[in-house]
């Protein structure tokens, strides 16, 4: 792939017309809505978008209105990657046969954590194995928010959701978040990266790199959901930042399997005293409120320990993959 580092500036963003338009019905403070708008700012030419069922699919496509200024397809919940496969296959052969204009068209598949970690995982794995040329963007708000905040396999340990409620016996979700990027890296993908909307330049640059790959690329975007997280709508960007600063969601990219920390996380790696405590990240979120009680305090410590271990592991992975 191209090794070019894409630098996006605020001026670039302002100059480029929106492709995910205003007027959609997302909630106040919606992280994913910001993510979609930003992603579309990094497109590089003719593009077709396909999207799995979910909040972001619903809010932008209520007939007869649309928020999509580019060709957009939705078929079902588990199908984002299979849609991308079909679109890409069609474009490839029709271009070859001269049935469409002889130009490259980028294909972006969008899905939430439900449509990626859970119901869409098989189709995603299949599409990646087949090597279709598309960028899969996972906007991860850590639960089935569209249907009323149910747990997914992306929901972090300890979080209270409507199907993993914090009760008098069970303190929220007991299981760990599935390591989706490890799964995608295990497919031998050329480009896998993480991003969050607070670090928007990093996000845009990674979208562009993902599009440049001649084959499948995967971008995991952390996207706070005020409704599902029981957090203040005004603090979406703050949580996007805190997740990185507390190393709950470190930023990195892997080109041909070589993982490298991205600047916001590299800063913490070089100056560990800048690493924020997990409490700073958890405290304001209603989904973790029950953890801050005497009987559940140990869970916060356990999550802190697990977060530290994951961070150390990532540091080792990034070191060992130094070119």
């Amino acid at each position, binding site marked *: 792939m191209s090794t070019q580092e894409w630098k996006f500036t605020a001026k670039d963003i302002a100059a480029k017309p929106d492709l995910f338009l205003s007027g959609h019905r997302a909630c106040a403070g919606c992280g994913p809505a910001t993510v979609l708008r930003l992603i579309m700012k990094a497109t590089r030419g003719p593009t077709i978008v396909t999207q799995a069922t979910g909040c972001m699919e619903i809010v932008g496509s*209520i007939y007869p209105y*649309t928020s999509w*200024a580019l060709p957009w397809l939705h078929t079902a919940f588990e199908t984002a990657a299979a849609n991308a496969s079909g679109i890409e296959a069609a474009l490839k052969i029709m271009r070859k*046969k001269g049935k469409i204009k002889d130009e490259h068209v980028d294909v972006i598949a969008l899905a939430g954590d439900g449509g990626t970690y859970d119901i869409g995982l098989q189709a995603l794995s299949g599409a990646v194995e087949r090597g279709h040329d598309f960028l899969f963007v996972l906007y991860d708000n850590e639960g089935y928010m569209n249907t009323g905040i149910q747990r997914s396999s992306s929901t972090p340990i300890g979080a209270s959701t409507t199907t993993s409620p914090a009760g008098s016996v069970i303190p929220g979700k007991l299981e760990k978040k599935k390591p989706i990027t490890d799964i995608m890296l295990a497919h031998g993908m050329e480009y896998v990266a993480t991003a969050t909307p607070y670090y928007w330049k990093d996000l845009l640059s990674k979208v562009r790199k993902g599009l440049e790959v001649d084959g499948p690329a995967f971008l995991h975007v952390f996207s706070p959901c005020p409704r599902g997280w029981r957090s203040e709508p005004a603090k979406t960007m703050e949580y996007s930042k805190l997740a990185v600063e507390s190393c709950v969601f470190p930023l990195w990219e892997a080109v041909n399997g070589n993982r490298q920390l991205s600047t916001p996380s590299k800063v913490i790696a070089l100056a560990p005293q800048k690493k924020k405590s997990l409490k700073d990240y958890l405290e304001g979120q209603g989904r973790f409120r029950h953890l801050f009680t005497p009987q559940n305090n140990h869970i916060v410590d356990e999550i802190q320990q697990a977060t530290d271990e994951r961070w150390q592991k990532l540091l080792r992975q990034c070191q060992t993959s130094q070119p």
Partner: protein
Amino acid sequence: MAQQQIKQTILAMNGDEAIAYAVKQCDVDVVAAYPITPQTIIVEKFSEYVANGEVQTQYVCTESEHSAITACIAAGATGARTFTASASAGLALMHEMLFVTSGARVPVVLAVANRALSAPLNIHGDHSDSMAERDSGWLHIYAENAQEAYDSIIQAFKIAEDVDVSLPIFIGVDGFTISHTLERVDTLPEDVVRRFIGTRSFPMVLTHEGKTVPFKLDPANPMTMGPNALQNFYYEFKRQQEEGMRNAYKKIQEVNSEYAKLSGRSYGNGLIDPYKLDDAEIAIIVIGSTAGTLKVIVDQLRTEGIKAGILRIRTFRPFPVDEIKNALRNLKAVAVMDKSMSPGGLGAAVFSEVRNALYDAAHRPIIVSYIFGLGGRDSSPNDLRRIYDDLARIAKSGQAEKTVTYFGLRE
């Protein structure tokens, strides 16, 4: 029938091979499929065409039938001519997406090598799989033999892709009986087939930008496909699908006649295919390959002076109500044979539809149901003759002892 001007090539092919061969001739852009018995020969054969560079087709070997049909929907939405094939559990796994295909008005052609549904596991032929998809909004055509399978695939693209139809279509062939049985198949030259179906055309639609453009994903003309339609619009979308079905009713007949001029072969009027029915007093209504076996029996009964006939329903969706009413107007007793069940219901799919169609007819014969052949159980000509014996008795007495018979079953 037709002036046989076009030189046809005789090939020995089983039903699956005939289907793959027809798909090859139809210049399909994208084939996305997943293997399942008894459909496998179709995808194997087509993979060979791809491997040998005999087709210009993007073959997507998906990880499931769910993704196979989904990739076809997406490719079709992008403007490609698409084909897939499946059977039994595979078709059942596609269920969710079959409704999406018809709802999104994508003209996918799907060959179903009809097979029983689990449990118990059974790989043999019956109609449980596609009958379970009766209300999925697809056109259903069932072939009687490998020749008709070949011809129907070619016709299918022309029917489904017609802008006034714009609906997906199943071509059903009986698993093993047709899919795996070697037959003589007369084939048209490839250029003739391609001229016959032409290139895909698209309905013109109004986009949010106020432009009237072809209905497909195109960066030059952005369009939101597969939107969310609420209480205020969903119903109108569904009603429009019914309009597509009504148009298909005519289109299937037109294509059947046009194809007859080209090939010398036609299948009734495309919707129903009667055999010695004009003066018949008793008749069997059936779908698929069983009609071929019944012809042998009817010929024999005729030599005995028994006025027996067959009404093969070729098109099950749209259901040919008027044709069936008209075809049965002089009959005394009719048996409807179903190779599927509707547990807890009265008879099965074809029987229910036929009885329903005749409710307001001026003349109604006595109509009884025969469930048969489940899980591929064979019915020999001698067995099947007993149904005509039953019908003769019913016609004479003017009453049926029972409505539903489980034929060829140990009870």
